[in-house]
């Protein structure tokens, strides 16, 4: 019986991009946070080179304020697929006095990640960093090229980007520069979820509804944790929540939810009228929070 390959346009495009990264760069790396987008990216990378092994390592910038479920999941995945994982610790830079920890009510290690990322890029000589960022996430991300050149300080010159024509990706760079590559640029949050469902991709349990100690502030639900600042009057309660996006614990809010499996999660997102990054506290700092961070080298 003839077998015909089903066409999934977004998957085919992402695989094409990942293969171009491997062909055009000497030392590519996949930035892996343990979140659903980087897990999807990893799945696509395995398909792109199957039956060969993934020809690049994974880099996790560990803020030290992660959800333990995410770290456990990361380590299981690395063992299961025989992956090379590099972990760069934000704590190391704090201990060395290179970056200063924020204090107070909205303190977070999110901004501090940039320095650790740039150090790791320099130390390992990575010339291309693949990431699971999507253009539908945030207005500054909507402006990114698929191959986006960074100078040797990791800075993004958003007003002077390279033209990018058709599928002709130009990965030629000067020594010291590196390129941020975004294979799933054109996917939406719902595309990622539908793909996770159809491919039966495993994701950390925190994406599904569970009971957690939380408190409310500014209309958002925060995890109660030693890593998250809490005022005495802010009361902790146990509630059914899940995470829609997973970042540093101190800047990722939960959403009230009863969605306990992939079908109910998709149902919930399809009906949701709030954008995904509505629960990212770091984006609420100012109108241009993401753009400013990206100019400095944030992913």
């Amino acid at each position, binding site marked *: 019986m003839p077998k015909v390959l089903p066409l999934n346009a977004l998957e085919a495009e992402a695989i094409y991009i990942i293969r171009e990264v491997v062909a055009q760069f000497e030392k590519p790396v996949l930035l892996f946070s343990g979140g659903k987008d980087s897990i999807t990216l990893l799945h696509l990378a395995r398909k792109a*080179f199957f039956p060969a092994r993934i020809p690049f390592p994974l880099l996790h910038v560990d803020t030290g304020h992660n959800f333990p479920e995410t770290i456990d999941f990361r380590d299981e995945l690395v063992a299961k697929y025989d992956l090379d994982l590099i972990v760069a610790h934000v704590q190391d830079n704090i201990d060395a006095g290179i970056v200063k920890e924020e204090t107070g009510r909205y303190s977070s290690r999110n901004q501090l990640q940039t320095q650790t990322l740039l150090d790791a890029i320099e130390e390992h000589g990575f010339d291309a960093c693949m990431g699971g960022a999507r253009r539908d996430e945030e207005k500054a991300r909507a402006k990114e090229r698929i191959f986006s050149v960074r100078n040797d300080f990791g800075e993004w010159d958003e007003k002077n980007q390279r*033209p990018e024509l058709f599928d*002709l990706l130009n990965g030629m760079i000067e020594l010291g520069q590196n390129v941020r590559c975004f294979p799933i640029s*054109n996917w939406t949050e719902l595309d990622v979820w539908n793909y996770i469902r159809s491919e039966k991709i495993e994701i950390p349990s925190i994406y599904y509804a569970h009971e957690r100690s939380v408190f409310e502030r500014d209309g958002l639900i925060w995890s109660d944790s030693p890593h998250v600042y809490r005022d005495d009057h802010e009361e902790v309660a146990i509630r059914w929540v899940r995470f829609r996006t997973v970042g540093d614990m101190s800047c990722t809010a939960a959403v009230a939810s009863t969605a306990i499996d992939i079908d109910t999660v998709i149902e919930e997102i399809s009906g949701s009228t709030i954008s995904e990054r509505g629960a990212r506290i770091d984006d609420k700092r100012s109108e241009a929070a993401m*753009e400013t961070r990206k100019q400095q080298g944030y992913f």
Partner: protein
Amino acid sequence: MDVLKIATAGSVDDGKSTLIGRLLYDTQSLPTDKLEAIKKSSEKKGYDYLDLSLATDGLVAEREQGITIDVAHIYFSTPDRSYIIADSPGHVEYTRNMITGASTSKASIILIDARKGVVEQTFRHFYINHLLKTSHLIIAVNKMDLVDYEESAFAKTEQQFRSLLDQHPLEKRTVHFVPVSALKGENVVDISGAMPWYTGSTILEILSKIDTVEESTQGFLQVQNVIRPKTEEYHDYRGFAGRIKGAHLSTGDEITVLPSMKTSTIDGIYFNGDRYDEAPVGSSVSVTLSDEVNVDRGDVLMTQLPADFELTKTIQATICWMDSTPLRPRTKFHLQYGTQRMTCRVQHILSKKSTDFRQDITEVEILELNDIARIQLKLSKPIPAITYDQSKELGRFILIEPQSRNTAAVGFIE
């Protein structure tokens, strides 16, 4: 679900952002938090309507200046299809960013202000889409509410635009004219009650009917990587990874490797460990061949060579110059052709388009940013003598400046 990519073009203040905002709003694609922000801003500015244009501006500089500098990608969907809008700048100085947005799009929406009709910028937008051979053009005659929804205003603009089309015929392409009011939501997603004289489709209806996949006669694959696992299980596996273009490929298809012109047969089409007899256009697969022929990255595996097929090292092309450093003849560049890169030299500048695109200027010494010109190139390796007219994928290239490594031009082989 399939994905349709659309580009928008229009001059300043002709309502491009509002049209995009309207598409998002009327398809319920604007999340509550964004909508709240738009409501607040609109109230603050004292408007008695929602300023939907606020749904699009991305960069600080864009918000400050109230213009679009670079392409933003905006997403919306209906139950049947996902859409990606490349929201491109209209200003002359950002033409290269506009081409960036339009190059990956199947359809372009060109906005024209009904009060003004076809203006200088319309020529530029039309000409770039003409150059790219964008399959579907939608001419949205906007701000119909400001001309009392008069059919005559729409008819006048359509006629002006049709005279442009007479000068640059668009074979195999479709042009739709739609009278709209993006501000009031007439004929964007919902049909207008205010223009009963218009019996055509809304913009969204037109978009929903565009074919996302077109097949031609020749299937081919530009090799990206050679996959050699060298594991016990796949000891002799040598797969050529790439994306299928032109037409579908089947196991058993005879192929010619370009440029070596060696022939072989497709032994298997593989994806994620499964073997397929057939794979459609657009799929990213690996193929194995039945002979031990030498194939490198950049080579093209091609079915059914045309009767008069030849390889060439000299090409003529129309290019758009995108670098701030001017182009001078006799300079060398890297030429990226599919997944292949080679050295090339600009032999001559044959002519360039006047700024209004109505004349060809000859005896040109240099090309400056955003100039569109015909040039002759000499390549270090042969490529198929196939024009952009014959094949969009095989008839295009980019030039990369060897010092800065920037993409300096896009070219269309003629």
